[in-house]
């Protein structure tokens, strides 16, 4: 809502110019978006109204897939949607806040002028994100391996970590954070180092402490990058797939079986593809992601307008 008001103000101020010059700038991206993102997405949405095995032509079944998913309580697909969504939301709720807070804290700590080896610290946090997911999963499985791994050997314990909750979630979440915070850290670092030193100096003169400076200078100054990372981290977390697949394969009792695992199993699983139902599930997941992002936008815009 707010943004539209802004728009109105802007357009009125500028008078209406019927120029097409914006296409010189947004055109190339828009064309690529249309061809490689929009058309495939529309096709995916269309597929959600069909029964389709990926080989033949999709057969139109109207809202049938959605009816089954949402209302047919006895259906496997209904169970998968409910369970997958619940688990995915849990993952999002656990990881996203930490995916923001940890790198933000690190970035602030690295801003301390007295801290040395900044590049080294930053590299240590970033490098896990460069390791391929399959290799990363093997590393973590080895670390928590009951017999071969460091954790049990150092604790002299015989716990089997992956088959009990909350351990299974803890490991999945931790492994995800391990690989994911580097990106956000870099964005925060770049944003914070861009905050004018004058602001901090005048705050020093006013006798503001570090906490006060963080909340009244740093945080407002990096509002937009922060916003970006919240939205993108959330959308990314909703697409979680590889970590639970490789660490727990969805267990125990399907308690870490996330949406994308069900969706991919249906579309590209061991049997004939059930791509129509898979598409319907991914459309529903998409709607959840978009609604949450819109909600985040509204909250952020409100806050930024004070």
């Amino acid at each position: 809502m707010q943004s539209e008001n802004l728009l109105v103000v802007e357009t009125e101020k500028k008078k209406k110019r019927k120029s097409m010059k914006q296409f010189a700038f947004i055109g190339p991206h828009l064309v690529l978006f249309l061809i490689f993102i929009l058309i495939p997405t529309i096709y995916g949405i269309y597929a959600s109204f069909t029964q389709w095995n990926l080989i033949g032509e999709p057969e139109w079944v109207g809202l049938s897939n959605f009816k089954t998913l949402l209302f047919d309580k006895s259906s496997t697909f209904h169970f998968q949607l409910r369970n997958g969504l619940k688990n995915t939301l849990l993952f999002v709720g656990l990881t996203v806040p930490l995916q923001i807070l940890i790198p933000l804290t690190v970035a602030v700590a690295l801003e301390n002028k007295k801290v040395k080896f900044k590049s080294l610290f930053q590299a240590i946090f970033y490098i896990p994100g460069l390791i391929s997911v399959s290799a990363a999963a093997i590393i973590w499985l080895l670390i928590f391996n009951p017999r071969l791994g460091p954790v049990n050997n150092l604790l002299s314990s015989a716990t089997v970590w992956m088959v009990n909750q909350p351990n299974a979630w803890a490991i999945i979440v931790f492994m995800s954070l391990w690989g994911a915070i580097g990106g956000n850290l870099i964005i925060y670092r770049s944003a914070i180092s861009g905050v004018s030193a004058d602001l901090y100096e005048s705050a020093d003169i006013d006798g503001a402490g570090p906490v006060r400076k963080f909340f009244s200078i740093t945080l407002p100054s990096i509002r937009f990058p922060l916003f970006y990372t919240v939205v993108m981290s959330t959308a990314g977390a909703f697409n979680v797939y590889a970590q639970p697949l490789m660490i727990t394969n969805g267990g125990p009792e399907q308690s870490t079986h996330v949406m994308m695992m069900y969706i991919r199993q249906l579309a590209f699983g061991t049997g004939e593809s059930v791509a129509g139902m898979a598409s319907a599930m991914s459309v529903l997941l998409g709607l959840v992601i978009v609604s949450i992002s819109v909600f985040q936008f509204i909250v952020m815009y409100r806050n930024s307008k004070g």
Partner: protein
Amino acid sequence: MRKISITKYLAYFFLVTSCVVWVFPVLFGFFTSFKAQGDIMTVGFSMLPANWVIQNYISVLTNTSSAPIVQWFLNSLVISGSHTFLVVLIVSLAAFGYTRIDFKGKETLFFTILALSMFPAVVNIIPSYKIVEALGWVNSPLAVIVPGLGGVGNVFLVRQFMLGIPKEFDESARMDGASDFTIYFKIILPLVKPVLIVTGLFSFIGSWNDFLWPTIVLNDVNKLTITAGLQLLQDLYGGYAMTGELMASAIIAMIPTVLLFLFAQKYFIESMNLNAGVKG
């Protein structure tokens, strides 16, 4: 003075503890790449190899018939390099368009495409392949370079940074008769260079680590990218049978991204001075 040193020690304490936790798996993976299979499977934990072996690296690197790693490396460099260059170009142009040029419905347009891009891409692989196929790009590097350019996330990021640059900047230039292109090229681009470097870095790494799409559109083993190629050498979700080799190949494949990161890191730490630049 005392206050400063307390914060300093707090900062150090936090950094060092979390770094130890973060670096441990990396070192563990690194040392594992120098362990023999029997060493890895020995009950009881030791961080360092009992005997350092480079067999894992040799076996990954010498498999030249089915796995021309050097060729894959070059392919990946060309593919990820071109992709990154085009991303930076296209994204900065688009972000400029969405922030610096007034046109009707630009916010609506932008947020619509952003929302649309958030739908998870699952069966999209079929229509995407059809499009790439219709363009005649199957088995050509273009099939891996171009489709990712339509992503909206990067435009969002760069747009956020451009919004932070005061309008007075380009308005004064415009009064001096500068064209939009001149403003884009001479004023805005230098100011957002740091975020473009970040974008470029992310794009390069994303493109470097992608494996599903390249295996779909590239058939010729000599045209594969390194991540997709190495995926062939290991079962995707394989057990511990080839742990040492998996670690070795992961480390080989990481070299360029690590180097690029070390190179780029210098830039966004030293030159990320958005607001200072604005003041100057």
